[in-house]
Each structure stands twice: as structure tokens, then as C-alpha cells.
């Protein structure tokens, strides 16, 4: 029997996934700042504390390093914690436990242990929260072997990938763009997973491949819809996972379209765009390229407070349209 499909917001989809995970497995519990009665800074945990109690929906003190480390220790010893950072920016306070401990523990101990911790990071700009509450740091963690790093772009994927993350024996870092939380989309009831490490072709096209992540997927789709009227057919690949990256889907798409544009919100240089471009340059798809690869990423600046500046420093739909058009028309 097919599961009932309803419209849920991205935040509701995550909340439902966490509830299902807790129903299915009593080892699963939630930790984070103000995730109890407050419901989480973005209302993702909502009223889960009323349903599962304060023992399984644990408000931590404002102690990111310690809190993340406690989650790592619990995961190491049999529990299945889902740890919420209030903002992804605060990962910087917990880097030690994430990078030195969670990521390497299994390796350092010769495979004797595993760390099935899930960490959730509300990320990105667009809320006027300025430089310390708006960053996109996923590539930082993507650089660390031992971690898996995902960026679901739809409510459907947010639920399915979170459930896959909980089932995964290794640490999974989930970057959730804050502006996606209110986005609605179809989500089936009940348990299902969306595999980690698998990209998704969200729109097919023959002229150009746009590889996008997170909120940029929707922006790329909007750009693709606009370009259709100009006769430009864009293929949009939602990367979904940045480590381990689904190279084959991107390679196949580029072989088909012969042009590649990478769109992501994080600072342009030394990031996902560099990785995808280099991966293509190293692959058999390189010979198929009809134009140089183009990256569209965030400006080389912290996120400013002023709303016009804030918009200007990350790619917007018109920027994607212009870059795609130039690429296809051979302007670059």
C-alpha cells in the first residue's frame, strides 16, 4: 500500500523524521540548546518534548564543545543521538569533537568502534542575522574523512535523508538552510529513507548542467524555468551529499550537456565548486566540455547585515540566469 503523501514544510518533515526515529528505536534521543519547551530556535523540534519527555529531548547548557562531545560519547557507547546546533556557525566551537574525535575514532581504533551520531546545522544567510549567524560551513566538514555531509534541498529529502542518517553507523552532518524550513513539499507518511551519497537529477535538459546544493537547487530550478522560454534547456543536479560525493551522476550529466555551472551559497573559492570542477576535469567528462566550467558562489566576504548587501553577496536567480545564458551562448 502506498503511504499517504501530504504537504509538509521542511521543518515539519525533519520533526516527523525525528519522531519516527524515536518511535522505532529507543536509543535515539535529541540534544541541543532550547530544543525543549522553546521548540528549537527554528521550531524544528517543536512540541517533541511534550511527546517524548525531557529525558529524550534534552536541553543542553550553552556548551557546544561539551554538548557535541557528549553526543559523540553516547554514540560511541550504544546510543543514537541527534544533536542540534542552534546555528551552524556554532560548529566552530565544537570543531574539536567533530573533527578530531567523531570523524577519526573508528579509524584510530582500527575499526573496533563506530560513532553513529547525527548532527544538524541550521545554515545560510538571508535572515538578517549578520556575519556570525549566516555562514555556510559545510565544505569545512566535507573536507574531513570519516564524516558524511549532506544538504537536503526538499522536505521529502529532509525526512528521508535524516532517517538514513540515523540508520547510518557513522557520523552524519546535516546542513539545513534556514530559508528552507518554511518551504512546503510532498512528504509520504511513515518510514522511508533517501540514500546518502546519491545525487538527484531534479530537471532534465540538454544544454547545460547546473550542479547545485541546498537552497541553490530551488534557485537553479527557477532559473531553469525562466531560461526555458529562451530555448535553453538546463539540467539541474541536486548534489544532496557533498561527502561522499556522487561523482557518476554529475559526470553523466556533463557528458550529456557538455557545459557545467556549479551554484552554491558558501564562499566561492576553496569549496564545493572547486571540488566538483576538479572532479569533472579529472574525469572522462572533461573531453566532452564545450566551454570552461563556471562557479557561482558566495562573495569573498563575511555575510553583511544590511539587507541589500546580504542579498548581493550570495547567488540569486538573476545571477544564475545570466551565468547560464552566457555559458550556453559562449560568452565566456
Amino acid at each position, binding site marked *: 500500500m502506498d503511504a499517504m503523501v501530504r504537504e509538509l514544510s521542511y521543518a515539519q518533515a525533519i520533526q516527523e523524521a525525528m519522531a519516527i526515529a524515536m518511535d522505532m528505536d529507543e536509543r535515539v534521543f535529541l540534544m541541543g540548546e532550547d530544543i525543549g*519547551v522553546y521548540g528549537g*530556535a527554528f521550531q524544528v523540534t517543536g512540541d517533541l518534548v511534550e511527546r517524548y519527555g525531557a529525558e529524550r529531548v534534552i536541553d543542553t547548557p*550553552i556548551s557546544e*564543545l*561539551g554538548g557535541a562531545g557528549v553526543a559523540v560519547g553516547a554514540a560511541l557507547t550504544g546510543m543514537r543521538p541527534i544533536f542540534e546546533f542552534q546555528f551552524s556557525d556554532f560548529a566552530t566551537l565544537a570543531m574539536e569533537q567533530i573533527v578530531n574525535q567523531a570523524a577519526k575514532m573508528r579509524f584510530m581504533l582500527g575499526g573496533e568502534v563506530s560513532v553513529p551520531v547525527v548532527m544538524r546545522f541550521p545554515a545560510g544567510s538571508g535572515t538578517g*542575522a*549578520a556575519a556570525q549567524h549566516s555562514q555556510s560551513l559545510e565544505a569545512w566538514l566535507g573536507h574531513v574523512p570519516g564524516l558524511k555531509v549532506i544538504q537536503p534541498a526538499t522536505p521529502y529529502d529532509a525526512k528521508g535523508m535524516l532517517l538514513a542518517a540515523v540508520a547510518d553507523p557513522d557520523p552524519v552532518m546535516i546542513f539545513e538552510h534556514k530559508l528552507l524550513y518554511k518551504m512546503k513539499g510532498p512528504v509520504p507518511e511513515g518510514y522511508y529513507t533517501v540514500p546518502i551519497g546519491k545525487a538527484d537529477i531534479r530537471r532534465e535538459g540538454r544544454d547545460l548542467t547546473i550542479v547545485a546544493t541546498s537552497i541553490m537547487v530551488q534557485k537553479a530550478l527557477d532559473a531553469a524555468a525562466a531560461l526555458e522560454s529562451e530555448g535553453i534547456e538546463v539540467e539541474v543536479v541536486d548534489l544532496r551529499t557533498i561527502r561522499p560525493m556522487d561523482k557518476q551522476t554529475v559526470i553523466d550529466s556533463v557528458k550529456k550537456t557538455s557545459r557545467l555551472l556549479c551554484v552554491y551559497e558558501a564562499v566561492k573559492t576553496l569549496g564545493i565548486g572547486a571540488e566538483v570542477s576538479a572532479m569533472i576535469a579529472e574525469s572522462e567528462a572533461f573531453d566532452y566540455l564545450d566551454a570552461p566550467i563556471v562557479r557561482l558562489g558566495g562573495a569573498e566576504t563575511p555575510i553583511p*547585515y544590511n*539587507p541589500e548587501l546580504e542579498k548581493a553577496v550570495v547567488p540569486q536567480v538573476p545571477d544564475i540566469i545570466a551565468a547560464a545564458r552566457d555559458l550556453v551562448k559562449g560568452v565566456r
Partner: protein
Amino acid sequence: MAGASKAVTDSRANLPFVYRQYSAEQLTEVLHKMYLIRRFEEGAEECYTRGLIHGTMHLSIGQEASAMGICMPLTEDDQITSTHRGHGHCIAKGAEVKRMFAEFFGKTTGYCKGRGGSMHIADVGKGNLGANGIVGGGIPIAVGAALSSKMMKTGKVVVSFFGDGANNEGAFHEALNMAAIWKLPVIFVCENNGYGMSTSTARSTGVKNIAERAAAYSMPGVIVNGNIFSEVAEASHQAVARARAGEGPTLIESKTYRHRGHSKSDRNRYRTKEEIEDWMSNRDPITLFESELREFGFIDDKGIEAIRDAVAQEIADGIEFAKASPAPDVRDAGNYVYTEQA
């Protein structure tokens, strides 16, 4: 400090600290500034509600005596680090409200040229090294500023404001320890308003009073009623004297309350209406200070009226200034990332 004359001081011998220490003029200026903080935040809140300001903001309404009391013995050269709830600290350290409004409106005339907004409000010229978006982020920075003061022999004292929630960050503990072992001229001021966002200190903190943490770093830990200006100022005086004498840091816990929610997204589910109501009606720091000033004969109704009117005008002018100021050019979005070099 230009204080009261000897004869006047004698007649005030039994009054609380500040009434012995300061002139009527200085004390009414404190009331003026407390009103300025309150009305500034009410004005900012209204502008936010009307959609003129974006982002979020954390209001310190109810905590004005704490900011003013701590800053009272500081000179313009002394420095502070502040928090996300930092508008009061900024005004208490001498900032102009018009440039603060301009910052909230994202304008080039703002203290951070529209780049920082409420959460990064600063006034470096007046010794405010900045609010902070990171809980506890300013505490080690204050210790670093105090290290500069010691190494450069500037005589500056540094105050680090932070909330009760910050006392559970590693940065707090590491910073206090270094300040203690190096005997630095820094004062740690924990504004304990009972909650870090939704989490009460009882639920977050292993000690009953944050001041007890001081014992672990062998520095004095002082608890004051943060809603009584005189109590806060007296503790600050002592800590400043200690710091200037090279005797090292002090931890002051200023017990207070925020009337508003944590930020603009707070539904106040973790505290009762009665609790909020009690603090607002019975322990409001401005009301308390105002009635003392009146009782001890430092001000009359007319004087209070004059202060309120002047503040209302300053706020209205400040908002007009902000509205009329130019926005940054988007082509300048990359400015200030690095130091411009000739």
C-alpha cells in the same frame, strides 16, 4: 571624579553609595541615560515591528541599572566587550543613539557602517569593542585587551559583559583562569537574568550563583542586585580599584531580569506571566532609581518630566537621522574584509 562637596557628602552620610559618591548632576545624568536605553530599545522594537529594521534583536529592557552601574566608574579610555544583548552597554559607555539607529537601519552612518546591525553594535572610539553574536565570545577578548593594557602600561581597565548562559562555555572558564594567573585588570560582569534563552540557570548551571565560579579561579566573586543602580555601581567601583591597583580580576554577578522575550521569535513558554509581571511592576530598575532620587531630594517631578521629554526628542531625532542616512553601495560589499593598505 568630580564628586559632591564635603558638606553635601556629610549630609548624605547615611545614604547608599552612589548618593555619597556623585553629584546631583551626575546622578540625574544616570537617570537620563537609563531612559535613553529604555526608549532606544522601545524605538528599535517599534521600527522592527513596522518592518523598518530587519534581522532580529535582543532587548535589555529591565537591565538598564546593570549597564549603567558597571560603566559608572569607567573612564572613556577603559574598554568593554559586550553581548548580543548589548544596546544598554553601548549607550552606557557613551554611544550616540542616532548612530546606533543608523546601524540598525543598515546605513553607512551607523557604528559598523551597516555591516553589523544590532548583534555587532560597537563604538570603538568610546571603548566599546563590540557586541557579539557568539555567547561567551567576548570574554577571552576582554582578557586579551587587559593583557594589552598591562603590557602597554596604559592603565586601562576592561569590563567583559556576558549573560548567565555564557558561564557554561569553555571560553568563560579558560578566560577567567588566565586573567587570574596573570593578574589582569579585567572585570567579568555576568548579567544573570535568570535564563539563557529558554533555559533557566537552575537547569543549566551546577552552582546556585554564578559568582561561586570565582572561587575556582581565586578571584573575588560578588553578587549584587542588578536592578539597584547604587549596588551595581558600588561593586564596580571596588572591582575597578582592584584592577587599577594591579590586584587582578573580579567576577561580579548582577542579578536582573529581561522584560522582553529572548529575541523577536520568543513565545515566552518557559516562564510565567506572573513572574514577568512581578519584575516589571515591582522591580523595574528605572522606577527604583527614580524613586530613590526623588526620595533623597535629587530630583523633582519637573526634573523627571524634563528628562523624559529630552529623551523622547533624542529618540525621534535619532530615528530621523537613521532614515535620512545613505545606505551602503552594494559595490562596496567587499570592503573591510581586510585592512586597506596604501
